[in-house]
């Protein structure tokens, strides 16, 4: 198992490294500049209903005139780039086994060793979770540093953990769906294509929700319906969203392990 986990880590380390640096910079830079100009920014946003709706769209909540500095910086956790990086990493790492191995022809070498397919898949899943966890911790750390200039207005660490945890569970859902597609397909495109389309659909529906009523109706069919950073910051973690995502993930992983045991790997 250690050897398989090392192989999975060797495959993921470069992307994890680059994304870690990118996400640290992003979360720090989105939070840090608000400190010195927080009152001006808050006044500016409160004077603009459109901007309020934009922030509400990013945060997945109804502001109802209750915009605070804490919620403003919390927008970092709903930033499209952050979501794209986390969900994108989940897709890429899940596509490595078996889809990418089959596509690039490494599968013959890997499975000529005395290892079971389920074991290889398990090693990849564990390493992907570890990498995703690391990326979330890096983002959390950089966000906390960026919030230091806010002083008393900064979100507390206890408020940040549910945010990171909720995003982590959303990324796990994406990883489970990608793992299932990877176990059924033989190319990375077969994994990434449908999930990128679904991710974009989720973002569009999620961000249009405050502006278009029809988007609210179809929102449960998108991923962002179950990840609402603003609501978490305002009223704490609502368990139903992560529970739905974790339930689906468990089902997808179960199916993936079953499929990979039985399929032809060519």
């Amino acid at each position: 198992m250690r050897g398989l986990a090392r192989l999975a880590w060797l495959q993921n380390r470069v992307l994890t490294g680059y994304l870690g640096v990118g996400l640290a910079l992003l979360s720090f830079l989105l939070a840090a500049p608000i400190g010195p100009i927080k009152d001006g920014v808050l006044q500016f946003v409160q004077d603009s209903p459109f901007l309020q709706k934009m922030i509400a769209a990013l945060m997945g909540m109804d502001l109802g005139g209750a915009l605070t500095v804490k919620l403003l910086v919390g927008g970092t956790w709903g930033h499209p780039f952050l979501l794209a990086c986390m969900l994108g990493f989940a897709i890429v790492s899940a596509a490595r086994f078996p889809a990418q191995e089959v596509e690039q022809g490494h599968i013959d070498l890997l499975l000529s060793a005395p290892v079971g397919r389920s074991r290889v898949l398990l090693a990849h899943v564990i390493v992907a979770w570890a990498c995703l966890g690391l990326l979330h911790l890096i983002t959390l750390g950089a966000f906390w540093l960026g919030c230091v200039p806010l002083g008393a207005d900064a979100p507390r660490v206890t408020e940040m953990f549910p945010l990171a945890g909720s995003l982590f569970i959303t990324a796990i859902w994406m990883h489970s769906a990608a793992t299932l597609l990877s176990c059924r397909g033989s190319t990375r495109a077969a994994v990434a294509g449908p999930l990128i389309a679904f991710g974009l659909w989720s973002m569009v529906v999620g961000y249009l929700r405050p502006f278009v009523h029809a988007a609210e109706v179809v929102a449960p069919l998108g991923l962002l319906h179950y990840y609402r950073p603003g609501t978490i910051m305002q009223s704490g973690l609502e368990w139903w969203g992560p529970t739905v995502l974790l339930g689906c993930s468990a089902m997808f992983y179960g199916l993936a392990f079953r499929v990979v045991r039985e399929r032809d790997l060519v």
Partner: protein
Amino acid sequence: MVPLTNVSVCFESVHKSFGQRIALDDFNLTVERGQVFGLLGPNGAGKTTTLRLLLGLLKADSGQLHALGRPCWEQSVELKKRIGYLSADTQIYPWLTPLEALKLFSEIRGDDLTAPGLILCERLSLEPGLRVRHMSRGNRQKLGLVLALVHRPELLVLDEPTSGFDPLVQSVFAELVQERTIEGATVLLSSHTFEEVNRLCQTVAIVKAGKVIVQDALEELRGRAARRVTIVFQGDVPEDYPAGLETTTLSEHKLGGQWRGDTGPLVEWCGEKSVRDLEISPPLLDDAFLEFYR
């Protein structure tokens, strides 16, 4: 019937299809322990599918497959501890070097294979520090061979192994195969090169359209293969030439044709005639195999 304890690989009525395309149909094969066994056939005949079924990469639709006394699909993990496999066009992670690959696969196999691996690298003139992304196809194939041989497998499965090897490496490869068979290993190799099979194998199966159409000792096949014969007479060509001689060219003093089997009767007949020159080629294996292919 070969006793089961002497059998390394046994396929019985195996069927495998990919959608509408039938890859193997009622496929039967028996490979005895300690043999170098050649699987010969044109592209798309089912050779690689056979080897992948053996490795448990594919699941047969029906039939029985056993290797080293174990079912290939159900016990593939246990089986692969004793099998070494080299694919036709070995693809290895481009960021690895041979040394790193040996360390990684040592960890995966749970046995330190670095030292014997480096000895094999040296014999094959493979630089241990060269990244796979900078390797030629031949060097990649060498690394694949090192990884297939390093754990001293009882069954060596090689899919068109020498494609990409230069003649020097081919001779090292032949030595390595010979050493392994002396140690008691069985070698099953697929090829579409007659010369490779002729040089290495003791037994051959010819595969065509997913079926084994002939399986025999190479010596037997050689014996059945035709030889090219040219006889030049002092005078006119006699009319009573032996029945086994299939004439292809006939002139006033010269007779050309093909002869199958033991050449004794032909030489004897020539001795009775006033022959100026007699030329008999070695058995035309290529032609024999091509006959099966058609």
